[in-house]
């Protein structure tokens, strides 16, 4: 190797190394976007509204991508082709009306072409006149509450308002209108496969259309930073056929039944003494001095304890498959897998079974009851309570004994 060849070879090696590094970074970036199981994939809509967004976004991204590639390619070509290597200064020109007019008209035409379907889609997504069902949604640190007003919801009569949390149950192929608000700070509601996101702002109601094509579970996530456990403020939308939805409504309107399990009976007492300060269980009655149930319902008063002034209603906890802001599973892994992989025809029946003893993820719930803030960070220690005007943000550690935890778990397992 000659002395002249040495530096050339080094430069080539550096160039090759740089090219490989760039290729690796680019490949990693592209491959990082791939996933086999992506429950929050916006590019795979499973509802009419999300499909409208998808039908708009892919051609827009295509046009933007082509423009971007052309612009970047032109810049790279010019930078390399006309780089300074000692050549003479080229002839300078000023003004080229044809080029300037062309470069003004072309983007205008592209923008108009993109703008017309965009405006059309925006109006279409804002439409509420075709509503067939209404659900009121309230965001709070760090869970979502769903209320179904008295109405005919896509053919299913709801005679009494009902409330649930974590899982938004919808009749499929029905235009559902969500009326979204918040109890404490700003949150944002997003089920990517069913529609775009909508902020939940205290004191305001923001409407959002929602429709699911088929029965199944559609995952979502709060998308506005809302405090310590923002990342653990999730939600699921559950699509059910009209018949299954009707069954679900009927179940939800039933008051809680008296516990039958010998362990659940004292569990009811512990629940009444500890949990019912914040959590409502419809049908739970106050206790007479002789130990029998009175006719006076136990009314939770979370407004005295938590900043949001609310806590999840647990009347039918085991009809849901998650708890604590849809963060933790009430189902074991195998049962959850079976539910997620169920065909649309089988899904409804499987979901309506709720949490059965053989599918119960007891360890998860037990850990939560033992020390909730250790499982999901919340401002709920005594010191933090003082900083929040004497109220908790989230569920505090109740310092229950193992026996009490056993009893409460047994009691909750019967809340279907």
């Amino acid at each position, binding site marked *: 190797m000659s002395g002249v060849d040495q530096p050339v070879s080094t430069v080539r090696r550096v160039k090759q190394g740089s090219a490989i590094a760039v290729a690796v970074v680019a490949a990693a970036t592209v491959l990082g976007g791939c996933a086999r199981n992506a429950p929050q994939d916006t590019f795979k809509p499973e509802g009419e509204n999300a499909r409208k967004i998808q039908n708009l976004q892919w051609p827009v991204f295509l046009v933007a991508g082509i423009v971007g590639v052309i612009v970047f390619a032109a810049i790279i070509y010019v930078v390399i082709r006309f780089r300074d290597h000692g050549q003479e200064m080229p002839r300078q020109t000023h003004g080229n009306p044809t080029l300037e007019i062309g470069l003004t008209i072309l983007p205008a035409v592209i923008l108009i072409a993109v703008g017309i379907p965009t405006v059309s889609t925006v109006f279409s997504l804002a439409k*509420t006149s075709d509503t067939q069902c209404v659900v009121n949604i309230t965001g709070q640190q760090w869970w979502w509450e769903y209320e*179904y007003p008295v109405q005919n919801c896509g053919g299913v009569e709801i005679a009494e308002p009902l*409330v649930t949390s974590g899982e938004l149950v919808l009749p499929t192929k029905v235009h559902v*209108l969500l009326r979204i*608000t918040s*109890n404490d700070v700003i949150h944002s509601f997003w089920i990517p496969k069913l529609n775009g996101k909508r902020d939940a702002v205290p004191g305001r109601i923001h409407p959002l259309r929602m429709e699911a094509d088929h029965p199944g579970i559609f995952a979502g996530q709060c998308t506005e930073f809302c405090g310590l456990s923002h990342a653990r403020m999730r939600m699921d939308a559950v699509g059910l056929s009209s018949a299954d939805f009707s069954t679900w409504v009927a179940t939800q309107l039933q008051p809680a039944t008296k516990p039958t399990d010998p362990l659940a009976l004292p569990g009811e007492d512990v629940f009444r003494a500890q949990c019912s300060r914040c959590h409502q269980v419809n049908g739970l009655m106050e206790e007479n001095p002789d130990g029998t149930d009175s006719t006076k319902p136990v009314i939770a008063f979370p407004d005295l304890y938590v900043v949001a002034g609310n806590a999840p209603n647990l009347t039918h906890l085991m009809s849901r498959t998650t708890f604590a802001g849809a963060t933790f599973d009430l189902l074991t892994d195998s049962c959850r897998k079976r539910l997620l992989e169920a065909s649309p025809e089988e899904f409804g029946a499987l979901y309506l079974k709720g949490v059965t003893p053989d599918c119960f993820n007891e360890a998860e719930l037990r850990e939560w009851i033992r020390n909730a803030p250790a499982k999901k960070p919340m401002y709920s220690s005594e010191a933090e309570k003082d900083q929040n005007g004497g109220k908790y943000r989230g569920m505090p550690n109740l310092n229950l004994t193992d026996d009490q935890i056993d009893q409460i778990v047994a009691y909750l397992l019967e809340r279907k």
Partner: protein
Amino acid sequence: MFTTGSKLFLGATVLSVVAAVIFGLSKGGADGWLGVVGLLTAAFVFAFLFCVNYVIRDGNVSAMSDDATTVSPAAQRPVERSGWPVLSSVAVAAIAVGAVSKPIVFKAGVVLLLAAAVEWMVHGWSERASADATYNADLRKRMLHPIEFPVLAAAGLAAIIYSFSRIMLWIDKSGGPVVFIIAGALVLFGGFLFASRPSLKTGVISGVCALAMLGLVSTGAVMAVDGQRTIPAHPTTGSDNGAVCDLAEEGPGEQAEIDDKGSQAVASKASIGITVTLENGKLTAHELAVPANQDPVTVSRGNVVNVIFKNRDSVPRRLTVNMGEFETDINGTKVKERPKICTTLVHPGGSQFLSFVLPKPSIASSQPYTFAVPGVSGLKPIEIRVP
């Protein structure tokens, strides 16, 4: 050795670290750590800038040579007089006084100290930039005028706006338009005068403007000290357990004036969740974005419900929210409470805002929650249900 720029950033680095330690020790807790992280971040940034300046020698060839700061003609120039040290000491005094009196004095001291420090630094640097004093002065202006002029202009405008606002808040409500008209006329007259007399000396114009400014600011200061006039409140709601909310006519005593002078229009309609309308002897409720009217209405537990009431009746009416019936124990005696909240009287064609919270579900109350309008015979109230 260290260049001037690197010394500056080294000092800032050390200062940030010391501040982080003091802040962390004195504040403690989560807030303390947040401050420590912020100050240490600043220290890292300053340290980085110190390294950069040290390596590139301030990007200045002369910094490579000690001669530039020791034996060059620029270095031999006598130091000019400067008012910035005096201003800096005033600022430090303000910080000390503000630390034990009012936070605003402390903040003003900090701002003043920062401004004086920047001015002092640039002044000190520019007076040794060359041996030519005129060139040095120009250099200083070139550096600082782009900052000084906008800041001074903003401060002047703020003084005018604040003074004028104090004057407007001091004078009687009916006097406001008169003052506006006179002030506007004076400005117009002054502008006309200056424009029609181009021969007027700049000094005269500046003097007139300075006098006007002085008059405005001093009047504003006097009126700010005296305080604003009493602005009567016109509440739009009552909640005295039905004494007013059950009345179809004006309430007694002070409530009569409130009913008479209550606002008849709602300015902000953006956060209205439910619109309740009384028309043809019938009450209807329309929830935002829902196509049809609702009866019953379902609202969230513990959440704010914002309602607008529209009276399309021929006589004044008020909307009352019956917030259930609850039995409470007062000194061993069971008492039934029926909390209510209502608008003041809404004149025909008027509308009013009402905001309330229902912290308990409907099953907690022995009576339903309802929207009602007292005095309308045969009116069916609208039930409010809280799941």
